[in-house]
């Protein structure tokens, strides 16, 4: 027989001002199984909790009902109280007589009191059916997978490795470095992007705890926190480990048809190539769609010139399967494609370029070796118009969000232009300047005041192609005038959008994404780097557009989360999860189909002696306790701990029965 204690809280006058708490307590005392029922001013206070602990000891209680505020407020508190007194923490139920009674039924104290009695009685009915539950533990594979070798992935990998854990860093491209490697200088300090990034790339390559896997993609994921099993495709590089990175093959390769991804298609690249000179690892790959040998069966020049015999045309894609305890997703972003901006020429005007293309143009390692010339005729430029918010803050293009960095990089680029070519004039069309960040506003001010960049608040209505010139028509809303600028080059501040295939990638992990495809964090404020899938963390622009410092901070945050997870001996699992009674399971796979977490496994199992049946089993460390399986199971074989059918039914029965308070 249960020994229940009922504790009714006054919450000062919050409850007691409306509900007759002594009557509630008295009624509680008359309920079967209730050994003691008391009311007290503040149950959650130290003396309040001590009252509970004393009562537990004095009456040998094994279950508690606290009639007070919302369980969302203090359930955890009273569970700890119970634990302190030696009762299983899951033998505690709360009756919410503050938010759900006193505060909402203050207009009739009698009805409020009756409802409080009822809710308390329902909690008693539920706790009577409660079972002692204990936290469960699952093993952790102390090895992290970092997906994406941009600055976010590199930083996360370095931090995790620094704590002594092994990391596998997977990058799709032949080299790590990501978007940051494409940049010329970084705001607001104007230091060289490569100068600050390259050391990190090298550090990642040299760290004994980090394994680099470039030109590789994650293709399959199963398992769960602590025990992810990930299948990775190592794309055939056609270059084997004998390569010493001398670069002769690249120099001699005759194919120039492909366009360089790294240079944003402003320049051709060879069929055997490293994306950029500082590539890590410095091992070229053959792009089989461009290679003359793979296309025609003739050439093999690279094989002939290679001093180490590292070229291997027969290499095949290879799949590896490895186990990880945690995953950091840092898959980055794409630049918004402005080809559906008709007013800017549908992406067909050669001298209307993206911000990232401008980075390559002005970068000394770029296709023009830092000379800003027009892509169409390679003439030097005089007037350059920058247009902000292309694919950002634009409802019509279904990109209403702000990409956060464009104001800054536009200012940076305008300044760099002036630095390189003092005789040029930069014009910037903007909606608002968003320069929140340390030294950011000052930076923009500098662009305007010291560099004479002309800021025009308004949109460009159309770019007209004239012979050798671009006529940019727009509005300056501050002066109210129409503006026409004869420009040599127009640079669009393209916003950020999710990487192509981001949604499909999310499905590998069952992660959710927002309407644009950016990955959803678990909580926008309090869990910004976690995802709904425990053990999977997000860093950088795959979650939302952000600048380098924020990306790095976020990456380090994921590393901290991973390390915190790995620091534990074993994984603690909340016991409020589903469980299958396999004797009654009919094996229809309904639960298996509805589970949002793939926490159900179907097995052929001997459920009774001599009787092997196809039955469901809950993977305890994966289950989140949502109960979708319970709601769907018509065999009534699944139940949810903490919200069992027995508990709910008894609550229902109590809720509908009259009060026998006399």
């Amino acid at each position, binding site marked *: 027989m249960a020994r229940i204690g009922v504790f009714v809280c006054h919450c000062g006058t919050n409850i007691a001002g409306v509900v007759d708490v002594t009557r509630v307590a008295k009624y509680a005392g008359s309920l079967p199984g209730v050994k003691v029922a008391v009311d007290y001013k503040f149950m959650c206070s130290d003396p309040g909790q001590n009252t509970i602990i004393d009562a537990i000891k004095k009456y040998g209680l094994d279950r508690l009902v606290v009639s007070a505020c919302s369980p969302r407020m203090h359930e955890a508190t009273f569970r700890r109280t119970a634990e302190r007194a030696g009762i299983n923490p899951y033998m505690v139920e709360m009756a919410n007589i503050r938010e759900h009674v006193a505060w909402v039924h203050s207009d009739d104290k009698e009805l409020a009191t009756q409802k409080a009695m009822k809710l308390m009685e329902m909690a008693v009915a539920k706790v009577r059916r409660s079972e002692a539950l204990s936290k469960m533990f699952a093993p952790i594979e102390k090895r992290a997978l970092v997906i994406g070798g941009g600055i976010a992935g590199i930083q996360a990998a370095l931090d995790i490795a620094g704590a002594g854990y092994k990391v596998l860093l997977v990058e799709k491209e032949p080299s790590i470095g990501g978007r940051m490697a494409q940049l010329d200088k970084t705001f607001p300090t104007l230091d060289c992007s490569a100068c600050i990034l390259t050391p990190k790339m090298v550090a990642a390559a040299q760290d004994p705890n980090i394994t680099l896997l470039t030109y590789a993609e994650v293709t399959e994921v199963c398992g769960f926190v602590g025990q992810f099993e990930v299948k990775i495709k190592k794309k055939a590089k056609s270059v084997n480990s004998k390569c010493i990175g001398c670069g002769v093959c690249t120099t001699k390769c005759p194919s120039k048809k492909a366009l360089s991804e790294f240079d944003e298609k402003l320049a051709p690249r060879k069929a055997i190539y490293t994306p950029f000179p500082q590539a890590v690892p410095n091992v070229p790959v053959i792009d089989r769609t461009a290679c003359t040998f793979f296309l025609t069966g003739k050439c093999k020049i690279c094989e002939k010139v290679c001093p180490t015999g590292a070229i291997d045309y027969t290499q095949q894609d290879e799949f590896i399967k490895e186990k990880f305890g945690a995953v950091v997703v840092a898959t980055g972003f794409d630049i918004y494609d402005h080809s559906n901006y008709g007013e800017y020429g549908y992406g067909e005007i050669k001298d209307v370029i993206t911000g990232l293309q401008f980075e390559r143009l002005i970068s000394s390692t770029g296709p023009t070796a830092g000379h800003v010339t027009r892509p169409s005729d390679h003439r030097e430029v005089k007037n350059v118009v920058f247009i902000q918010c292309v694919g950002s803050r634009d409802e019509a293009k279904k990109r209403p969000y702000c990409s956060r960095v464009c104001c800054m990089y536009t200012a940076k680029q305008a300044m760099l232009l002036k630095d390189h070519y003092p005789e040029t004039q930069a014009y910037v069309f903007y909606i608002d300047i968003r320069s929140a960040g340390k030294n950011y506003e000052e930076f923009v001010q500098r662009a305007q005041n010291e560099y004479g960049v002309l800021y025009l608040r308004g949109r460009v209505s159309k770019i007209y192609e004239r012979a050798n010139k671009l006529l940019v028509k727009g509005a300056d809303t501050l002066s109210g005038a129409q503006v026409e600028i004869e420009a040599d080059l127009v640079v669009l501040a393209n916003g950020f959008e999710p990487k192509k295939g981001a949604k499909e990638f999310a499905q590998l992990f069952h992660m959710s994404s927002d309407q644009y495809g950016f990955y959803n964090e678990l909580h926008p404020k309090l869990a910004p780097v976690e995802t709904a899938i425990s053990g999977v963390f997000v860093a950088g622009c795959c979650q939302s557009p952000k600048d380098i410092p924020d990306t790095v901070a976020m990456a380090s945050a994921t590393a901290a989360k991973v390390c915190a997870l790995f620091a534990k001996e074993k994984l603690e699992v909340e016991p409020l999860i589903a469980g299958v009674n396999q*004797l009654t399971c009919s094996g229809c796979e309904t639960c298996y189909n*509805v589970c949002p977490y793939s926490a159900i496994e179907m097995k052929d199992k001997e459920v009774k002696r001599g009787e092997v049946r196809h039955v469901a089993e809950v993977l305890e460390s994966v289950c989140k306790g949502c109960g979708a399986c319970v709601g769907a199971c*018509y065999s009534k074989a699944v139940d949810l701990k903490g919200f069992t059918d027995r508990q709910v039914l008894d609550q229902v029965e109590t809720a509908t029965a009259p009060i026998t308070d006399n």
Partner: protein
Amino acid sequence: MDKELQDLIKKLLTEKKVDYAIGYEKAYDEFSTRPAFVTSAEDTARLIFNKYCINNLGLYLTKLKKNKIALICKGCDIPTVRELVKEKQFSRENVIVIGAACDGVLDKRTGKQPEKCLNCGVKQPKGADFTVGTAKDSTTARNFNDVAEFEKKSSKEKMQFWDRQFEKCIRCYACRNVCPVCYCPDCFAQRSMPEYLNKNVDAEENKMFHMIRMQHVFGRCTDCKACDTACPVNIPLTLLTKKLAKDAKELFNYESGADMDARPPLSTYDEDDPESGIM
């Protein structure tokens, strides 16, 4: 037709393609048949097929899960096989479906054709591995007019109607036990912890049993009428099973046992599902 059927089964048994053939044989008088389980070629002579073969033999698939079975099915029984395969109760390779062309069956209690035989579009079975005989499908499509007619009643009238029906119910569970999709190893009705259903037999308790059973078979019931025919006190369960079929069709455009690839309506969803009056 009997001869053709017997020969086919004889062949399947002789070639050891199946362990059991489940068909029909004559029962206690010329107006009744009962399920026959045949294991040897010599025994096939008792198999018959006529207009009294009302039982849905698909029921036995879940009871002989491990065997290879040849099952004689009327066109209206085949959805049951599909549904059970879909629900992983039986693997399709283990059953050879022998479709028997049927011109409608007769209910032994009334001597009349049950409702399902009117406007039947599967007199000539569809989806069988072998088919015996030929029959002409009805050209008019099935309709839900009778259910729609009942739906017009006020909720009070409906309540009274069912109260009167379930007053009669003796909770013999014949409806449940002949139902092919009521295969749960331990029916909720006989659980004690928690006690979903009281053992007490009274109209209210009986009604709850039927409500829950109907809910549990929603999207799975193929409206085969086995429960309706089995009821010893003639409760018109067809009015309920047909309602399920109607709702599945109207709410989710789903037909149980029709499409092997369609997900059961309650174990899937669409982000664009209608709000159905949810506030």
